[in-house]
């Protein structure tokens, strides 16, 4: 797999905006950014209201995903280009999610909305309409999704990568610093996890670092790239970004995203937690 199979840059998107069979999708938790302006032709997916089950803590199920993509006018053989705010966190999450349900042709716009804005490229408010499709999803590919018991079993055996900021990892902060800090769960990290913040995989403008830089980053932090790896963060979207770097860009075969992440692990009764620096 090469980088161009999974990632496109802003110039490419500008040149291919009108290609048939290409669907540009902005994914955000707060979709007011889309409403104020988006890349021409892009539709939106609301991470919170459309990708999450409204009652249980889980994703929409296979039928729900089929209904969502059908209503959005996305066909099984469309090339889907995802982008979003927050350095593409939610777009990377959606990318992982599209892969989880077996969508073949999906790529990320490198740098997402931020790079596009910093380049002063065109944003429009016109919302496109797409005819509905009859989308068919596959069963979830659990080779890329980790659950809590697997994370506990991975302590001391698999690579555990905690991609939160150093202060969240050590237990000083419970949430990213743009959010209020009142949270129910305990602070800290999974024992034996390495702290490699997602941001180290990205440049200031939100684009991914080169394969060579990424390989050096993880290797120097003590990750054995030949071993299975589980990435986690607070709720699983920053770790989707790291999952993308490891699985899609570096092509490692056994990398899972633990979407339960710290909000689940830090609330479990009886599991081991480590505080402070990585040991």
């Amino acid at each position: 797999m090469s980088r161009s199979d999974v990632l496109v840059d802003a110039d490419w998107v500008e040149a291919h905006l009108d290609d048939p069979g290409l669907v540009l999708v902005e994914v955000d938790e707060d979709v007011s950014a889309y409403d104020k302006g988006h890349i021409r032709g892009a539709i939106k997916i609301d991470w919170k209201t459309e990708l999450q089950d409204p009652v249980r803590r889980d994703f929409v199920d296979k039928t729900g995903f089929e209904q969502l993509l059908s209503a959005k006018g996305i066909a099984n053989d469309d090339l889907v280009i995802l982008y979003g705010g927050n350095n593409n966190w939610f777009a990377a999450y959606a990318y992982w999610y599209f892969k989880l349900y077996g969508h073949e042709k999906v790529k990320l716009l490198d740098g997402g909305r931020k790079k596009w804005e910093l380049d002063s490229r065109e944003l429009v408010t016109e919302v496109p309409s797409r005819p509905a499709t009859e989308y068919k999803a596959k069963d979830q590919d659990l080779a890329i999704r980790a659950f809590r018991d697997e994370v506990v079993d991975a302590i001391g055996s698999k690579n555990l990568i905690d991609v939160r900021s150093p202060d969240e990892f050590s237990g000083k902060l419970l949430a990213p610093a743009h959010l209020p800090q009142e949270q129910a769960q305990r602070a800290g990290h999974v024992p034996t996890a390495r702290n490699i913040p997602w941001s180290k995989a990205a440049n200031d403008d939100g684009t991914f670092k080169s394969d060579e830089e990424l390989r050096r980053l993880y290797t120097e932090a003590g990750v054995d790239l030949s071993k299975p790896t589980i990435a986690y963060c607070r709720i699983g979207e920053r770790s989707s970004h790291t999952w993308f770097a490891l699985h899609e860009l570096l092509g490692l075969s056994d990398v899972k995203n633990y979407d339960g992440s710290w909000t689940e692990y830090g609330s479990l009764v009886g599991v081991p937690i480590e505080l402070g620096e990585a040991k």
Partner: protein
Amino acid sequence: MTTQGCAAPAQTAHLPATVDLSNEAVIQGKVTRDGAPVSSAYARLLDSTGEFTAEVVTGDEGVFRFFAADGDWTVRVLAAGGVSVDTTVTAKTGEVAAVEVAI
């Protein structure tokens, strides 16, 4: 809680009513160009080692806000045209550390 993600809330000049300032070390600032507020600039919070901690996009009033911890921080503001401006700030629980960034 279960569907509360990690996206930043709207960046407004007034602290949201739900926030209990006595438990928070707030860093808040305003980005201006020739005195006028700049919306859609990117404010990044870096810790004392220069490590990225958080990022928000300024709102209509040019405002950004972080919930940090006690200590020294750097705010890096990015804007179109290759602008990148660093400002250092010290945060303390129970206080709002104010920052003005002219680009």
